[in-house]
């Protein structure tokens, strides 16, 4: 499960480099995100632009990651592909997660 992190301004963007977060990948996704959570501080934005398919296993894994970071750190989502966006909408989890159309640009602190 390849996930690339970029940390800017106290917040990290985790770009998923896999096409499917499904039953075959859910555990590896959670494990990798736990590693990332330990290696970073602050909020994490999941770049989902490469994920073309996500089922309820993947959904549960994303929820699990959100709970690992809570309560002090947020998990937000960005660049959902149409099918994945639909899964979040049908389950009404789109009302729970902050979902960005594009990765929000972090402001670099001076100095």
């Amino acid at each position, binding site marked *: 499960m390849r996930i690339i992190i970029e940390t800017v301004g106290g917040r990290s963007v985790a770009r998923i*480099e*896999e*096409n*499917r977060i*499904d*039953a*075959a*990948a859910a555990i590896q996704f959670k494990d990798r995100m736990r590693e990332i959570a330990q290696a970073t501080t602050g909020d994490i934005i999941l770049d989902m*632009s*490469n*994920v*073309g*398919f996500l*089922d*309820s*296993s993947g*959904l*549960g*894994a994303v*929820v*699990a990651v*959100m*709970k690992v970071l809570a309560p002090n750190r947020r998990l937000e989502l960005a*660049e959902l*592909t*149409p*099918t994945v966006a*639909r*899964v979040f909408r*049908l*389950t*009404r*989890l789109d*009302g*729970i997660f902050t979902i960005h159309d594009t990765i929000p640009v972090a402001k670099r602190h001076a100095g």
Partner: protein
Amino acid sequence: MTPSRLQSAMPDSARTLAPAGSGRRAPLVALRFPASPTEVRGALMRLAAEWEVAGLAEEDRGNAELVLAEVLNNVVEHACKPGGAIAVSARLKAGTLAVTVCDGGVEMPGTLPDGTPPSLDGADLPEGGYGWHLIRTLASNLSYQRISGWNCLYFQVPMPSAAEQSTPVEGIVSIERTKPE
């Protein structure tokens, strides 16, 4: 949004063979594979490839793949022992995809779940229970039968982009995998 360049690990079962039948008609696809999450992924990718060749809209393909993923994940998790036989057939008829999923696992206890979505109100957001809600939302005419030691689930998925298409009787793609990956 640009389509993904990436391909998750694709088992051999999903490698595209030349589709049967002529041009853009959707063949009947019959798959048989041993129960495992990786095999399910391969079967779904194989079906999605067939539907793409048939010219079905992305939303229709996505809905069908999602329903089938949820059904097959349930089979692998609850019905079949690892490596147990699963058979799927999917046939397009006048804008509806008719799907049969059979497995040789344990009989389903009780009735099919009604798909009530889990409550999102509590302090602890649920990590499971979404699957049957997705199935009930996207599929219709669900029915279950136990026949000669097999579980068989039938359902339909509307495919408006395929309203003009029906599976020709002579076009059948049949793939059988008996060795698990």
